[in-house]
């Protein structure tokens, strides 16, 4: 029992393997110590409680290294093509090449008559670069930016608002609609429509007109009911 303790403490490899066993087959492992005395079971349980931290630290340090490598690789994607550093105040040309705004601005100013993308030599201009806004935009303030004109603004188009009025998209939206009418087609002498759960109600638009409509439809509804009653009674 004491030997098992020493292995868990001293040998990190063994420790690691046992912990992985713990993860995959917890019952098997707990059964092993149970063959010895009861106290060993307690100890083993304490072992389990002790083990997770080293296991966690191990599993976390290794992916950390991988993360760092990956981060480096990822970072190299965001290197400005001019200063070869991580792009600050990044802008992207229409041809898709990334630069710091001060770097690109400087490049364009040195060749005002022939404004070409340094990477692919496509024709570019200051108005047609797109600024990239990361989350920590304020942190990326570059002192050089004061000497170069401000980055071009991003262009933004408002989303389309007319989608609200499509109506009857699904059954749930439809509401209940009933209308009465009398007369010879195409001439309707009087008619009434009867609406439940009108879509316009939800949109909250055309308030007064809507109330008027409702009033009229109620009036016509009663007229229709009276007319039917008269028809039946007569």
């Amino acid at each position: 029992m004491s030997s098992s303790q020493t292995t868990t403490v001293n040998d990190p490899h063994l420790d690691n393997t046992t912990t992985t066993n713990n993860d995959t087959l917890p019952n098997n492992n707990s059964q092993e110590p149970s063959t010895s005395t009861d106290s060993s079971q307690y100890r083993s349980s304490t072992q389990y409680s002790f083990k997770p931290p080293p296991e966690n630290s191990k599993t976390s340090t290794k992916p950390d290294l991988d993360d760092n490598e990956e981060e480096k690789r990822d970072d190299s994607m965001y290197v400005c093509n001019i200063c070869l550093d991580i792009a600050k105040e990044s802008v992207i040309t229409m041809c898709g090449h990334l630069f710091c705004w001060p770097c690109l601005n400087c490049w364009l100013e040195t060749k005002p008559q022939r404004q070409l993308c340094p990477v692919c030599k496509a024709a570019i201009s200051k108005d047609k670069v797109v600024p990239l806004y990361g989350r920590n935009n304020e942190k990326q303030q570059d002192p050089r930016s004061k000497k170069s004109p401000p980055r071009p603004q991003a262009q933004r188009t408002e989303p389309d608002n007319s989608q609200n009025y499509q109506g009857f998209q699904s059954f749930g939206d439809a509401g209940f609609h009933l209308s009465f009418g009398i007369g010879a087609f195409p001439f309707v002498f009087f008619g009434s429509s009867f609406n439940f759960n009108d879509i316009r109600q939800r949109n909250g638009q055309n308030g007064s007109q809507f109330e008027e409509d409702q009033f009229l439809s109620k009036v016509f509804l009663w007229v229709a009911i009276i007319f039917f009653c008269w028809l039946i009674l007569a």
Partner: protein
Amino acid sequence: MSNQSIQSENKPNNDEPVGNKGSAVAKRLQKELMALMMSSEKSVSAFPEDSNFFRWKATIVGPKETPYENQKYRLSIEFPNNYPYTAPTCKFTTPCFHPNIDISTGMLCLDILKEKWSALYDVRTILLSIQSLLSEPNNDSPLNSNAASLWDKKAEYKKYLDQFYEKNKDT
């Protein structure tokens, strides 16, 4: 395509105020040096001259299957203050017999070091371009007309070049 034109192209821009460029240029040159030293490129190499980071010494090995095979040429590269917005000045310090290289001054005629310069080019790409210029000269605008006229006579060219190289390689 004279020597003066190369210098005059770089000079006017040198005094242009372009922010605190000194440190930015040094930073970029440092990155380039790192990249050069990490790369497995054997045929070209470059290193700053003494303490001045803006003057580099470079060597180019002649490309294979060309008359320049197994020949080694030294160059000097001088970076302007607003590098990489303007091209560095490159010069052969080992005299080189080539249609586009001035035999006495070592100045060379290469479009990417002039009107086709891009801020993207770095020391490595410049040296590789010069290396490929050795194998593919532009005979339409020669700086060395002798070499340009001799280029088509391969055997003669090779013979003259070898003699010239042996004579001058140590200078």
